């Protein structure tokens, strides 16, 4: 049997044992789901500014920037979360909690509120 080569990234695959492949594949799909979420946030941020819906400009810009910042940070967290979870599975530790999920949901709610207020003020 040929020896396994060390896969990228080393800080994930360099230690531990192979987890159940189904968990690794599920981890990969979770990463992709986060990436899609980030893309949707970016599209929302661009659309708000480019389409200029009838929302008070200050509030609209604030909501747009919030979506854009979230959308830019999301792929970073997607990768980080994937790496942390894969490492934890390889080392048979409990999965770290997804620290970014709750603040992201809160930030989306804030953006929605900004739009609502801005809509009423327009």
């Amino acid at each position: 049997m040929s020896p396994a080569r060390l896969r990228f990234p080393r800080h994930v695959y360099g230690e531990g044992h192979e987890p159940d492949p189904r968990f690794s594949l599920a981890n990969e799909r979770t990463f992709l789901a986060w990436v899609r979420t980030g893309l949707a946030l970016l599209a929302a941020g661009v659309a708000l500014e480019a389409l200029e819906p009838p929302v008070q400009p200050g509030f609209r810009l604030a909501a747009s920037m919030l979506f854009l910042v979230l959308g830019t940070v999301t792929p970073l967290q997607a990768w980080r979360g994937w790496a942390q979870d894969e490492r934890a599975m390889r080392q048979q530790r409990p999965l770290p909690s997804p620290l970014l999920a709750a603040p992201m949901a809160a930030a989306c709610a804030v953006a929605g509120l900004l739009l609502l207020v801005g809509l009423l003020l327009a």
Partner: protein
Amino acid sequence: MTPPPTVFDPGLQPERTVLAWRRTALSLVVASTLSARLMAPALGAEAVAMVSGAGLGLALVLVVAAARRRRGIEASLREHGDLSHAPGAATLAVTAATCFASGMAALVFVLGRTLT
């Protein structure tokens, strides 16, 4: 008579993972085309073509990469029973980096419009 090749996982996870990559490629196409269309008045037709073209090209790369990835994953599962010989996570890292760069570009665009 050799037994027929068995599916490692009755849940068909490798197939579901390829579909997830394809959904991501589709999101990429939609986001880049929409952004290009929306930025058209500000940036002009060439920028629109470039952004949509880049998004579409990248999406195609993802679809092809996902197919290759799946073959590597299934080969590793068939021959070793685990993912030890499957592809590494370079495709994931490149995808995340590209989306991050797109986010930065979108921020620059919106800030540029606001500040000028």
